[in-house]
């Protein structure tokens, strides 16, 4: 087991280097010289040159110990992200944004899983009947409506018209009111796709021979579903779930934008709008790192849940 983990951790390095390479290429090579942008519109050549020097943009790109790429790499390793265009420390921005993001995504995540898995089990119970077919139709329809429309319609209908929730995020209000609506919308919008996915997993499992054996032993359908099928189905479900966790932290940027929740997703969108490469760069690196770590965790979980797999 430890050998496995060590090997995987070692493999992480080339990936992380790769990610840094991609971000570097994207933001420095293709993005071009941003010193002009930082200096502002009316800056003269001297200011621009000063800024270039301050940000190290006048150094060679790759081929020296002091090159831009090496610096990029070093800074990432030490999590020194420097400052954003508005001069605030990026690390401070990030830390500030984590809590609102999590406040939104964690309940959404838990709600989604419970709703999707239980509904998938129920649908597997009634497979082949009209309920199953209608459920599939509703799921596909849900998947076809753009996410944006869900949000806008939800906001319009539940907040504006029915006035059940405030239209935007108000920190003074209790949590259930302030983030209740975005959480609800988020769950409903992704339910279509998730449910369809879990349903497919359940039905695939139900086609296996051991289900027939279980029925032949005299077990009821409920027992077969909730004990036999679920435990097998949990294997792909858990791996899927673990891999989704890093995305929780990114926050649902669309929801954050619409409801004015000052989380990491909102930060990201602002950065994109302002073309603040430093922030975008930092966030891309962090999330990639998280994904790499959680991919490893997913593999470990997988080995725990499935007795057939032993980690070598």
């Amino acid at each position, binding site marked *: 087991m430890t050998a496995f983990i060590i090997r995987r951790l070692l493999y992480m390095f080339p990936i992380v280097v790769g990610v840094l390479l991609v971000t570097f290429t994207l933001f420095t090579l293709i993005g071009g010289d941003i010193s002009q942008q930082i200096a502002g519109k009316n800056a003269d050549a001297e200011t621009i040159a000063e800024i270039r020097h301050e940000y190290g943009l006048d150094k060679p790109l790759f081929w020296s110990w002091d090159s831009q790429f090496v610096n990029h790499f070093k800074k990432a390793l030490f999590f020194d992200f420097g400052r954003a265009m508005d001069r605030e420390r990026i690390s401070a921005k990030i830390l500030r944004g984590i809590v609102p993001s999590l406040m939104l995504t964690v309940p959404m995540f838990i709600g989604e899983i419970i709703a999707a898995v239980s509904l998938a089990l129920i649908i597997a119970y009634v497979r082949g009947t009209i309920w199953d077919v209608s459920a599939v139709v509703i799921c596909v329809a849900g998947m076809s409506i753009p996410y944006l429309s869900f949000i806008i319609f939800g906001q319009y209908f539940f907040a504006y018209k029915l006035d059940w929730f405030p239209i935007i995020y108000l920190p003074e209000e209790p949590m259930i009111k302030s983030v209740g609506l975005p959480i609800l919308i988020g769950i409903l919008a992704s339910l279509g796709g998730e449910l369809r996915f879990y349903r497919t997993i359940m039905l695939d499992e139900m086609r296996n021979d051991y289900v027939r054996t279980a029925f032949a032993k005299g077990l009821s359908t409920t027992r077969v579903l909730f004990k036999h099928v679920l435990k097998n189905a949990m294997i792909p479900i858990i791996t899927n779930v673990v891999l989704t966790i890093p995305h929780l932290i990114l926050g649902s940027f669309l929801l954050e934008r619409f409801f004015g929740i000052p989380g990491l997703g909102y930060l990201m969108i602002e950065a994109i*709008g302002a073309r603040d490469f430093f922030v975008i760069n930092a966030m891309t690196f962090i999330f990639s790192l998280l994904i790499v770590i959680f991919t490893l965790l997913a593999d470990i979980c997988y080995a725990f849940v499935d007795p057939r797999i032993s980690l070598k």
Partner: protein
Amino acid sequence: MTEITTQNELMQPRGYWSDAIRRLRKRKLAMLCFWIVAIYAGLAAFIWVGDILVTHFGWKIPLVQWNEHVGPSYQKPAAHYEFVPEMKTESQKGWCLLGTDFMGQSTFRKTLYGAKTAMMVAFCASIISILIGVPLGALAGYYRGWVDDAIVWFYTTLGTIPYILLLMAFAVVLRGAHIGPWELRGSVSVYLAIGLTSWVGLCRLIRGEIIKRKESEYVLAARAMGCSDFRILFFHLLPNVFHIILINFSLRFVSFIHAEVILSFLGLGETDKPSWGAMIDAARTELARDVWWEMAAATVAIFIISLALNIFSDALRDCLDPKLRMD
């Protein structure tokens, strides 16, 4: 429901593709969806051609001229309405299906134009995605060794960066970027952004399939006949995974349309031409004034094509996937 098939019909040998098409034809719903998609594609082509004719050749094709002022600002959908266009004194009468937007432009025409934007984006992005993903996957799967390691490292790296982040990052960076002497227009940057970030899944899939089929007998036979690697890859192996590429293409098409909508919404797409995302963006402020038709039009248009594509892709996959075949 239950047709009597004769013994003869059951025993006729069937080619893979003709068999798949025959089975697809039997599914009425899937065929309906196919025609819906075809209509959208046809409309998109018509508008694309019409657009060129209108802007470069000065033709007058009303349906394509989306920026014509057909009515007052925020006119509701109505059977009859009158308005006085700027710089004219008499009133003009007309009917509008879906109302007008802030500038008096026809929502209906904008929706049609949006179809062209969406289909073009999805199509071009798909092509880029296939052109990158398939060859890389094939090379990785066929040669293994260091080629495989390098390509796998590359796509794992790209795949590690969260898709939306990558997409937005590419879109931001590519706007106004220069490739040699040319500056990238908004729309091309969108094609590139989506295409360059979405090839990873296809690459993995193709690589897996090539690895599985590399040791099959027909490949061995081809090699024994002296075929070059290139020939084997392109004339023997790839045709056999074509159905996977096709299924992947139709499944991804929907997600590309949705990606375009999000990008336009964020202002990262082509900003001077209508698109569904921009229409939804406008709706944010419009709804407060009870102007619902722009968003409704865009949402319904997206909904119909997504639904049709989803259903059709499912049916296509059922018909083409040998493992799922139950007859």
